[in-house]
């Protein structure tokens, strides 16, 4: 088994095919989207492939140490150009191919007009544990 993080971006990812902001959708399209996401998470859980899902708020700041006896420097809110992660789903699957398959399903979530959003998602592997048997 290998763990992967599927990352969703508020901004910074290439534009999706069906690029209509949610507040312009019809109410039933929002319902369909929410249901699709819940169902997918349920299915991964019953498959034994789900680890966790988390969302992040869009606000935040940069912070760095500013030397002895001084408070840390903050810089924010984030510039419009910053790549901004919206949330992630962690999965534990048999292969890289399976991770790609699941990310594809996630990206097919319906949006405006009930058509798939084709959102770009980032798939990132976690480091694997060092194997016990090495030769």
């Amino acid at each position, binding site marked *: 088994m290998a763990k992967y993080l599927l990352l969703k971006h508020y901004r910074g990812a290439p534009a999706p095919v069906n690029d209509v*902001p*949610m*507040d*312009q*959708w*019809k*109410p039933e399209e*929002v319902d369909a989207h*929410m249901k699709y996401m*819940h169902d997918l998470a349920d299915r991964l859980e019953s498959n034994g492939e789900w680890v966790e899902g988390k*969302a992040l*708020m*869009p*606000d935040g700041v940069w912070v760095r140490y500013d030397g002895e006896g001084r408070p840390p420097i903050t810089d924010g809110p984030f510039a419009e150009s910053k790549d901004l992660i919206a949330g992630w789903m962690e999965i534990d699957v048999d292969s890289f191919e399976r991770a790609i398959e699941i990310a594809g399903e996630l990206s097919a979530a319906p949006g405006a007009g009930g058509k798939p959003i084709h959102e770009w998602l980032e798939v990132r592997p976690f480091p694997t544990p060092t194997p016990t048997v090495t030769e």
Partner: protein
Amino acid sequence: MTVDSPELRDLVPRVLSVLVARGADFATAEDAVQEALIRAMARWNEKQPVDRTGWLITVAWRVFLDMARSDAARRERELRFETEPRAGEIPNDDDTLRLYFLCAHPELTQSSAIALTLRAVGGLTTRQIAQAYLVPERTMAQRISRAKRTVSQVGISRPGDVRTVMRVLYLVFNEGYSGDVDLAAEAIRLNRQLAVLSDDPEVQGLLALMLLHHARRHTRIRPDGSIVPLADQDRSMWDTKLIDEGIEMTYAALGRDRLGEYQAQAAIAALHADAASIEETDWVQIVEWYDELLRFADTPVVRLNRAVAIGEAIGAQAGLNALSDVGEQVPRRDAVAAYLYEKNGELELASRLYARAALNSPSLAEREHQMRQAVRLNRDLNRSPQQTTP
């Protein structure tokens, strides 16, 4: 017969306060009481003792002595204790109340005070508390043992007061019920015990406030986690028994003529709970109570809620005027502004504000809720020109 856990845990503060009163150090005594609880769970299913508190005190005391003996570093302290305590000690309410104060001690950080209260007064296990707050058990165990060290050092000289206890219970209640442990119900249970020990009307006010919100909770959230606004809640599903108790308690507290912020909040909740429909809500009185509440707690959140109430009592424009006192950065301000602009017929502006409120919502359920409001308004805006020109 099975041992009912909350009923068993009701005995915890008295047992612990007896051990501490006998001179046991707080941290070890607390561990001993937890161990006694585990033994009670195992044993009482077969046979319940007649004097359950006495049983717990005896077992906890023995466990405490074993712990004190087995720990070489504590050998010296052991010498201070006789093997058997004096007979006939009865825990008194003041000792138990002091235990509440200790666990919510002002020297503790808020998260530590919450964790320690749930364990030492509530009798929950570290694992249950960790699950409820979605942190690893190890993290919660460290938080609790640091808190115990802190109160062992500073506690006795400056014991804290009932205000800090109420603050802790209020925060626990607001955490709701995310995991296996129903924190809202736990806060109510602890607040009921506190109300027996303390005659501060604010304790009654807080308990009333909790009961009145608890009575409505199943109608506030749909099974899928989405939010149902007050106007759309199914009032026939509200728990009328809890509401009656909450309203009665509110009046009893107010009748003692020592108003405070929890009583004012309870009065507002009582007016909502007492209305047969949203239209029958006495918004004028609610605004008056918000004005009272401002005297005790002039916070942006209170001003925000007051603006909503004014919007209902007088009109949307008056509500918007009241909103001008509230800073732009206050969470949920956009959502309230959107609601009032919609009420005022400014639908495009309302829709934009709902969309912005969604982006800034502090919780996912609220984000979805505000987004749906924006979507609903946009649908109406797109539809209306087509309807006028068929």
